[in-house]
């Protein structure tokens, strides 16, 4: 037991600080991806409910691709694709430099692509829950289309989309584990290093799993509060 405590303690002897760094990378990757995924997902949802068939089709192709590809493959496509693309470009420009793609950025792009295509579905079904009268009311007040969307529709939309988006956040948190494969020192990678050095794989991967569970619990608690906050107007009725 003492041995185990030493292994997971902070400092030179233990791996606690390394794992804590990994947790920080995991969390910051998920948080950094979220806004891009949400905004992109919202724009795609707008495109999907457009009157214009060509816009709808373009958006549907996007989601079909990124919902159909394994997340791991999307990650490799982005990571190596951008790397090779940059190499070709520098070769074309006659430069002889080696540029390595930042694995954090590659992970962010890949996860945002996947997140946005799922989020667009969440937003789209939320859009269906908002009656046409809300738009008409906005226009009747002389608000522009954009202002109607921002001031009338969006506040209601967020409330409707929150449960689905909350689930997507939990999925995103889990999917960040994949970036350990392209060399980012996230929770899984740090646990893997600790496991290899100490020869205690079950302990460290078990700890990694438990940390993911704790993160999920904290997120769920936070999401419950956000949902309650978004519904604070409902109780007055």
């Amino acid at each position, binding site marked *: 037991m003492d041995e185990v405590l030493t292994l997971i303690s902070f400092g030179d002897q233990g791996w606690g600080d390394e794992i804590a760094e990994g947790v920080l990378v995991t969390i910051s990757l998920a948080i950094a991806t979220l806004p891009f995924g949400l905004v992109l997902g919202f724009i795609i949802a707008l*495109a999907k409910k*457009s*009157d*214009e*068939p*060509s*816009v*709808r*089709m*373009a958006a549907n*192709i996007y989601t*079909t*691709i990124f919902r*159909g*590809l*394994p*997340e*791991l*493959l999307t990650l*490799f*496509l982005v990571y*190596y*694709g951008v790397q*090779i693309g940059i190499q070709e470009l520098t070769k074309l420009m006659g430069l002889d430099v080696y540029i390595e793609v930042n694995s954090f950025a590659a992970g962010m792009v890949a996860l945002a692509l996947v997140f946005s295509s799922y989020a667009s579905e969440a937003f789209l079904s939320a859009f269906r829950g908002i009656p046409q009268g809300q738009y008409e009311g906005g226009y009747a007040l002389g608000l522009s289309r954009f202002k109607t969307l921002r001031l009338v529709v969006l506040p209601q939309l967020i409330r409707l989309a929150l449960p689905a988006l909350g689930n997507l956040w*939990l999925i995103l948190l*889990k*999917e*960040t*584990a*994949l970036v*350990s*494969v392209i060399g980012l020192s996230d929770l*899984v990678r740090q*646990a*893997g290093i600790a*496991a290899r050095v100490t*020869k*205690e*794989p*079950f*302990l460290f*991967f*078990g700890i*990694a*799993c438990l940390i*993911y*569970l704790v993160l*999920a*619990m904290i997120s769920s608690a936070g999401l419950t509060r956000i949902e309650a906050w978004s519904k604070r107007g409902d109780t007055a009725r």
Partner: protein
Amino acid sequence: MTAADPATGMSAPPPKARKWTGGRITGHVLMALWIVSGAYLVYYLALNIGSPFVQRYWGEYVDGFFITVQIVAISLAIGAALSIPIALARSSKLGIFRWPAYGYVYFFRGTPLLAQTFLIYYGAGTFRPELQSIGLWSFFRDAFNCVIFAFSLNTAAYQAEILRGAIQNVSRGQWEGGQALGLSKAVIFVKVILPQALMVALRPYGNEIILMIKGSAIASIVTIYDLMGETRRAFSRSYDFQAYIWAAVLYLLIVETLRRIWDKFEARLTRHLKR
């Protein structure tokens, strides 16, 4: 010309000319981009179909495809079998059944599949003496078995939740009807409740199959040469990016085909529920 309405003798007004609004232009530009990239992709693949890369590796891609199918099929089948007792325990009135099942489902749905796979594949080494003493070490030494083990447990948790939700959706009257006919609880469950529950669960099951196909790519990280594993090997040997392009095309084909077949299948099976 549109036909005149026989009652009034008036013909319908001609359709309005559609204006080139900003949205329409954007849509056409985006579609043009997709079409150009799609055409380029087809051109690129056609150009490379006789390339040394394809000749060297296509057999391995086929092998990888079958390994992926095997992993997905075996895990889904074992998961389905495991999910029934878990779902029953999860909706049991007794805490000693309900809480462990809840913990199981929470653990496997709350942690990444990658971490679970590592936990089982690498973690089994920690218990080597114990596993050897009960003769299970040779099972856990093989990466393929570990992957099947991890994926089965993972999908069992998801399938149990699907099943539980579907069973709860079947109305109480169905249970009561069965009891009125003098059927035992087990018979009611298998012959009355389960068929109706599975019907409702078809769509989430379809999603779970697709999630499993996509998730199975993770097996490649623990040295399994499934479709993704073969792709990674081909890329590391040739450093040719088309390795990933082919994999993307194949995965998209598999997932889209399956999704469409499943939609047809579901529409066919639930046609009596459509109003």
